[in-house]
């Protein structure tokens, strides 16, 4: 029934044939937190270190040339994956840094503007009375940086609220995003609710008021075909480790225009044009935003991850996940005493599904699943305000990926029933 040959895929991931908790075969359903890595990704990283490793962009010797070529080829491959040009793709250490980079453009510009007039693009200068708009389903990575920008500039934070079934309440969008709005930053696919948001519509409203539009694509890029141009965003952030790539690499795509206009974030070597003790000028993007020795081996490995996904086909990946989502929501809906937090149908939602079990704490549900070898995530999933909105302290989340099949989901479902029985709430 599924769009992917999951058995063949599983065989590419060494960790998926390990056992946990005294011999239980591992059923990994925590890919929303971080994905596992196929052999080809690990090989690419190791080959880089064993054959080409050197400082990139700075050296003129043979290895430095090879390393630089590997690094910039990786940039091309990864940018191409989201329909972008290499020169518009900035490497960071994770999506959190990407989003902070975006947020700091505003607080840095505002601070510089108080001491130096001119030279700073006014779009980035915030002051009391200005507003920043996010949603109530943001990951902390797209919430706290904006709280901090507000603390530093006096701007205020607004947010789009949620409907009962975990979608954005767009009824008052035009009031929320108004002439005071300088930034709108929203999640493409919610990591806790699974909701896929109408990003383009919100970005269009953003541009109608002249604000900068930012999208957090952490949970979309790994799971569906994404073309940055179709989203109408100015900046788009995501992480490598959730899409088969290594830890330690994140991405920020931006339009050429916005990347040119933004002040730098991290400063130091490799992002400069000229340096004197008194002042420096900066290289064009993406180098302007990549200070210091970059995440070279990680970029090479992430490019291998992209190749792995492209080989499967992102349309097929999305179709596979849609089938898993459908099975999961239907099965959870049918379970007594279980309530999905988020959309209860598979329409415009990803395969990550959060739920609560009557009378049971998520930690205890997760523990019972864990005792059966099933790894799920429990907690607020770094979206604490979203939990508050739904009146739950936390949830249990099943988040499958390309290497999971229906049997894996069923193992989790059986675990839920076993937890209800163990704690006598059934």
């Amino acid at each position, binding site marked *: 029934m599924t769009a992917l040959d999951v058995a063949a895929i599983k065989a590419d991931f060494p960790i998926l044939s390990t056992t946990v*908790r005294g011999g239980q075969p591992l059923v990994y359903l925590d890919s929303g937190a971080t994905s596992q890595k196929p052999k080809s990704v690990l090989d690419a990283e190791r080959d880089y270190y064993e054959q080409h490793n050197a400082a990139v962009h700075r050296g003129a010797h043979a290895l430095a040339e090879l390393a630089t070529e590997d690094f910039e080829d990786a940039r091309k491959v990864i940018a191409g994956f989201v329909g972008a040009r290499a020169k518009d793709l900035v490497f960071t250490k994770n999506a959190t840094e990407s989003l902070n980079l975006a947020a700091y453009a505003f607080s840095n510009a505002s601070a510089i503007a108080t001491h130096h007039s001119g030279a700073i693009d006014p779009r980035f200068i915030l002051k009391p009375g200005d507003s920043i708009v996010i949603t109530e389903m943001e990951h902390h990575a797209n919430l706290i940086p904006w709280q901090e920008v507000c603390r530093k500039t006096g701007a205020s934070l607004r947010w789009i609220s949620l409907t009962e079934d975990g979608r954005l309440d767009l009824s008052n969008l035009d009031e929320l995003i108004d002439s005071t709005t300088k930034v709108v930053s929203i999640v493409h696919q919610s990591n806790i609710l699974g909701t896929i948001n109408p990003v383009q519509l919100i970005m269009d409203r953003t541009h109608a008021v002249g604000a900068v539009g930012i999208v957090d694509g952490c949970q979309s890029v790994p799971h569906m075909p994404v073309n940055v141009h179709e989203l109408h965003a100015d900046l788009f952030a995501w992480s490598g480790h959730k899409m088969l790539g290594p830890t330690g690499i994140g991405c920020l795509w931006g339009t050429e225009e916005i990347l040119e206009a933004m002040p730098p974030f991290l400063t130091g070597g490799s992002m400069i044009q000229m340096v004197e003790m008194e002042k420096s000028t900066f290289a064009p993007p993406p180098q302007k935003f990549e200070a210091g020795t970059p995440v070279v081996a990680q970029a090479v490995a992430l490019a291998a991850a992209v190749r792995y996904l492209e080989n499967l086909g992102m349309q097929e990946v999305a179709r596979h996940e849609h089938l898993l989502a459908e099975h999961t929501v239907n099965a959870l809906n049918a379970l007594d005493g279980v309530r999905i937090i988020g959309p209860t149908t598979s329409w415009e939602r990803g395969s990550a599904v959060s739920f609560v079990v009557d009378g049971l*704490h998520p930690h*205890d549900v997760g*523990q019972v699943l864990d005792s059966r070898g099933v790894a799920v995530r429990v*907690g607020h999933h770094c979206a604490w305000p979203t*939990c508050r909105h739904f009146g739950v*302290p936390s949830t249990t989340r099943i988040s499958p990926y390309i290497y999971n099949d229906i049997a894996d989901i069923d193992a989790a479902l059986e675990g839920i029933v076993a937890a209800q029985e163990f704690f006598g709430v059934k």
Partner: protein
Amino acid sequence: MDLESLYQDIILDHYKHPRGKGLLNKPLGSAFHVNPTCGDEITVQVNRDAEGGLIIGYDGQGCSISQASASVLVELITGESIERSEVIRKAFLELMHAQGVGEPDEDVLGDAIAFAGVAKFPARVKCALLSWMALQDAEIQAGLITTGEGA
């Protein structure tokens, strides 16, 4: 895995029938703690009775381990002297950091020895310690112990 080694009957019993849950009228000290990974919360309060024995109040929400641990705490600490409560608290901390090795002292820890199995699950140790860390802060606030003592 042996689920029963974690969820001992004593723990499940305390979870389902928490002892002494509820806040005090006029606490000497009160501390609110939260587990930042799951959002579990607890408020622990202290006061002293006429003989100087400790009175404990608490309220909160959380998983079976954190709730049972708070209930056991009340049972163990209520009526005890500061000195004795410090002995118990430190013994519990030690138990939680023992990773399941060694023999806990039942004379000191009473029902709390049931938590020995929890020590084998690092992610749950925080749950078990939540109320005990709050107790320490509440006692510091009440001026009964000083900062850092036995931390």
